[in-house]
């Protein structure tokens, strides 16, 4: 055997795969990977594929017709309107909440954090129900609102309120841990260097949290556009008026108009996919940035 072959063989022995002692035999690994992938394919991938397959079942023309039909267009518009109002509202709230929670120590802080997370543990249907109980005709303020001629339930304000409720914690819960980890050193440095409070906030805090902010807004927006249970309760399902895209999907599906239902659903699925792609990209980028702060 030539000498260089021996050398290379011994090198292979000297540098074993990192976790050789800590891994399973090849066939076990193969089985486990296969099992996991099969499970994911069956439970996650197949439903996603089904959406697009059903939507295009009768060809692209039928698909396009379903999307450009007036009620569908109205639903798309309404969904955008609701998101355009509720996402900035929760963005503002998330920044304010994380500023006071992460930069200051005060009594009741943990309670506040728990309460901010509360909407996540409430069923979407209950999230809608509570506004019906407040503002519906038989609700606590129902009679008063009727006299004033203000309609909240079965109207856009109700949709917005319910959406704000279900997407309430998204931005805050991304920003709070991020800002807590970053601490207040940089803000203090800026103040000592002569910056005002606003200058410190815009020039130091915001640039440091921008990716976390974007991440939170992204998830908030995905949920705002896709929310079903909560808006279903407050919407009243008036076609062309109080139907958001997910509600429109339901109506079409219940009318056995499957192609149209899946066509609208495919738009939402695409939104989900875009969200996932941007989210994953942010995690790679943002993960590095976070790691860079941990010296």
């Amino acid at each position, binding site marked *: 055997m030539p000498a260089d072959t021996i050398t290379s063989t011994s090198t292979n022995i000297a540098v074993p795969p990192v976790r050789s002692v800590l891994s399973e035999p090849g066939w076990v690994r193969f089985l486990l990977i296969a099992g996991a992938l099969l499970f994911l394919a069956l439970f996650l991938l197949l439903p996603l594929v089904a959406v697009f397959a059903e939507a295009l079942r009768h060809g692209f023309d039928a698909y396009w017709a379903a999307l450009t039909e007036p009620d569908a267009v109205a639903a798309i518009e309404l969904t955008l309107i609701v998101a355009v109002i509720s996402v900035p509202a929760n963005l503002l709230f998330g920044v304010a909440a994380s500023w006071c929670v992460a930069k200051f120590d005060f009594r009741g802080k943990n309670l506040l954090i728990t309460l901010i997370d509360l909407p996540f543990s409430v069923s979407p249907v209950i999230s809608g129900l509570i506004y019906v109980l407040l503002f519906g005709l038989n609700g606590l303020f129902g009679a008063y609102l009727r006299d004033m001629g203000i309609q909240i339930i079965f109207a856009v304000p109700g949709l917005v309120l319910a959406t704000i409720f279900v997407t309430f914690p998204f931005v805050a819960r991304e920003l709070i841990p991020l800002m807590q980890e970053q601490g207040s*050193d*940089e803000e*203090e*440095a*800026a*103040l*000592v*260097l*002569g*910056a*005002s409070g606003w*200058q410190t906030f815009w*020039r*130091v805090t915001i*640039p*440091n949290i921008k990716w976390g902010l974007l991440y939170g807004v992204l998830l908030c927006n995905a949920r705002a556009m896709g929310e079903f249970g909560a808006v279903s309760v407050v919407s009243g399902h008036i076609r062309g008026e109080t139907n958001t895209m997910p509600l429109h999907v339901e109506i079409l599906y219940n009318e056995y108009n499957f192609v149209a239902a899946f066509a609208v659903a495919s738009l939402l699925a695409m939104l989900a996919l875009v969200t996932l792609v941007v989210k994953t990209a942010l995690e790679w980028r943002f993960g590095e940035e976070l790691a*860079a*702060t941990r*010296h």
Partner: protein
Amino acid sequence: MAIQVSGITKRFNDFTALDSVDLEVRSGELLALLGPSGSGKTTLLRIMAGLESPDAGGLLLNGEEALGLKPRDRQVGFVFQHYALFRHMTVFDNVAFGLKVRPRGQRPSSAEIRRRVTELLDLVQLSPFAGRYPAQLSGGQRQRVALARALAIEPKVLLLDEPFGALDAKVRKELRRWLRKLHEDIHVTSVFVTHDQEEALELADRVVVMNQGRIEQIGSPAEVYDHPASAFVYEFLGQVNRLDCTVEGGIAHIGDGALAIATDGGVQGRAVAYVRPHDLGVTPAVGGPARISGIHVVGPDARIDIDLAGLALEAEMDRERLATLGIVAGDRCAVHIDRARVFAR
């Protein structure tokens, strides 16, 4: 006086961080606040900068009452322990920040800002790194950026919180010398916090030793090392043998009368004598009262463990002296104390 601290007290709930502290910092000096963690030194520094406010007391900066002033109006430069560099800004922008945030009327032109930042980066020898981000710098480089950033606003006083705390030993030594030299060049009144006695003694014009929210001693490095004012300072600065003793009529008896030293009076009864290892003399003596239990050579010095009737002592001498004495572990010897301080218990 550049800084005058009078009767400053600060409490965090039940913990008293500063207990009525008085301190004067002279113009142009480099002063060290030295103490163990929890001694209140960082809190004092942060109060000077306006990052904390005291519960009681007064603070004058260059003769002006400063407690009512916000940090931004105090004109102090502050170097944070972990630098607190703005991670999303380049080195240049970090240094320029303090100038850029000034109100429109007082803000230098951008050409002027560029000139001054370049000058500062030259001063801290970081000009080639102006376009880098903090994450791309080494610890020592970050430290220097933090310093340049603090100096950019032309502070009347410079405050440094554990400036070398996060650096490894070698860089720390280099940077220490460099900072000393920088201070000699620009002569801005500077206060730095440290828990490292060597750093304080080497760098500072005067050292303030703090413990449990109070000042134990203020003096030049030589004064605090050679004449510690309290048992705490003795123990905190350098190695020391701590020997229980009984004082009668001005004589301290150590270890059942095996050793005796004259005290400067005032102390009676049970006490503790403090002896630096290099103040403990060893002479070989057959049948002497003590025994050499071990000898450790560390570089040019030798550390000698001595057993004096069950009492463990440590002496220190250079290797030449050790060779002259010709002692080895196991030998009997006599010990004598060249210098000691006795404090009541």
